[in-house]
């Protein structure tokens, strides 16, 4: 057996496992508290919790099954075939070769007209996957190797099923968020309208506790999900760089793209924000120096990503 040059990053794997474990832990604790609330105070808060979970599950399943359509229409992207012009032919050619290298089914390809040089991949599984690049990614500021690096990064997201993983991870946050909102409105409007005067005091306490629990769970899961998202980005960088064997090309694409994005007008930035988690480089990466910004961001800092890529480059040259 020949030696392998492609050792997995154990540290990254361990940190990602820990993050997922903590998310699961918060989820279990959340359920336990909810059950306790229900059993301690009767069904007063039951309806709120029930509706939050129902609506949360509905939203999660909906976004899971329609992730490709939602993301494509939000980015105003159009699906293209290999014969729809030189731009489409080029992307298809790169995707074809990378698929053959990685032995994975070919995703659909879409192009979005946008002044931001960026790319994203979406779709709930490899068969439904869509890979989208923006027109300005293709306008010549990236050379072919860099473009290939970006596409390899996105194809790794597909291979890692990141849409599914992040959707499931967000489920908890969505429910907690809904619960907070419901409890808040319940507090505002619910108290006086109830027929039963005896229960009013208890009901208000339940709502307050639900509100507090919801806020805590929402905050903690939000941070954990962002952390997980940053680890998934690093994993995709790594897999993409190993796929092409050109970590430095991906690194130079990253420096070019994040530099360009910081200079784009504000209006487009706001439009693109909801899609950030699936983009190649985040629209609001601006100053990555502050640690608080890092804590909330969906993508690792440019420094962190470049450092990993140069480690891989060293590993390949050995």
């Amino acid at each position, binding site marked *: 057996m*020949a*030696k*392998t*040059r*492609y050792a*997995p*990053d154990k540290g*990254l*794997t361990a940190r*990602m*496992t820990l993050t*997922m474990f903590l998310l699961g832990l918060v989820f279990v604790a959340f359920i336990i508290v909810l059950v306790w609330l229900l059993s301690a105070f009767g069904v007063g808060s039951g309806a709120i919790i029930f509706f939050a979970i129902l609506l949360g599950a509905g939203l999660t399943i909906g976004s899971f099954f329609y992730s490709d359509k939602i993301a494509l229409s939000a980015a105003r992207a159009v699906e293209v075939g*290999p014969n729809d012009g030189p731009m489409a032919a080029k992307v298809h*050619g*790169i995707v*074809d*070769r990378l*698929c*053959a*290298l*990685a*032995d994975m*089914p*070919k995703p659909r390809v879409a192009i979005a007209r946008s002044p931001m040089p960026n790319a994203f991949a979406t779709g709930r599984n490899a068969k439904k996957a869509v890979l989208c690049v923006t027109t300005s990614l293709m306008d010549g500021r990236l050379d*072919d*190797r860099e473009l*290939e690096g970006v596409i390899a990064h996105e194809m*790794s997201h597909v*291979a*890692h*099923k*990141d849409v599914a*993983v992040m959707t499931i991870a967000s489920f908890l946050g969505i429910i907690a968020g809904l619960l907070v909102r419901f409890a808040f409105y319940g507090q505002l409007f619910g108290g006086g309208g109830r027929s039963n005067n005896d229960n009013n005091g208890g009901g208000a306490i339940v709502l307050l506790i639900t509100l507090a629990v919801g806020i805590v769970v929402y905050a903690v899961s939000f941070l954990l999900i962002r952390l997980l998202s940053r*680890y*998934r980005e690093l*994993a*995709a960088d790594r*897999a993409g760089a*190993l*796929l*092409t*064997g*050109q*970590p*430095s*090309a991906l690194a130079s694409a990253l420096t070019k793209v994040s530099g360009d994005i910081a200079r784009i007008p504000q209006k487009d930035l706001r439009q693109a924000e909801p899609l950030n988690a699936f983009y190649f480089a985040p629209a609001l990466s601006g100053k990555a120096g502050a640690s608080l910004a890092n804590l909330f961001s969906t993508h690792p800092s440019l420094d962190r990503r470049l450092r990993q890529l140069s480690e891989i*480059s060293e590993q*390949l*040259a*050995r």
Partner: protein
Amino acid sequence: MGFLDTLLGRTKPVPPKLDDLFAIPTAAITLQAAMGLVPTGTGSVCFRAAEGRAFSDIEKDVRELLSMGEDAAPVEVTTDSYGFTWLVCHHAADDVEALVTDLHAVNSSLVDGGFGPQLLCTLVSFRDDSGKRLGLVYLYKRGTFYPFAPLDNERRDNALELQVRGAVGVDLKIEPDLNRWFAVWGAPGL
């Protein structure tokens, strides 16, 4: 790829399958008998060069190795517009076995050097009397073949390709997923 690898985002580069390459000489005989497609004696290996000294050393060794044989023609090296490297070997038209042996030497050098996952495909070219061109493409990661018949203006002769699939279906493992029959326009030696 396992569930855990997906969950933890640690996909590994896929090692190539090499053995099926040796089915080409048999298929060449079939193609000639059934469809009048004759091997041109040219074949090529396509791979994605990795950056760094380690890979360029191996690439240099392979080129020297292939140019060393007693009746060896010089090996051509070209890079296509997608950044993939093609090593093109030339042999006598009737000596497909020697050609395949040369192609295999490239594979095993890369695999021994730890760069097996960089291999993309191998292509053996054929031609008939009327000038129709055909490339038999071997996908390393799948261990399967598919026919590629280019026409002018980046069009493909799908009829010929499907005909070839029928003819050599017994000799070769043909790639069942037509989506993976990707076009290799301007492949050297075709």
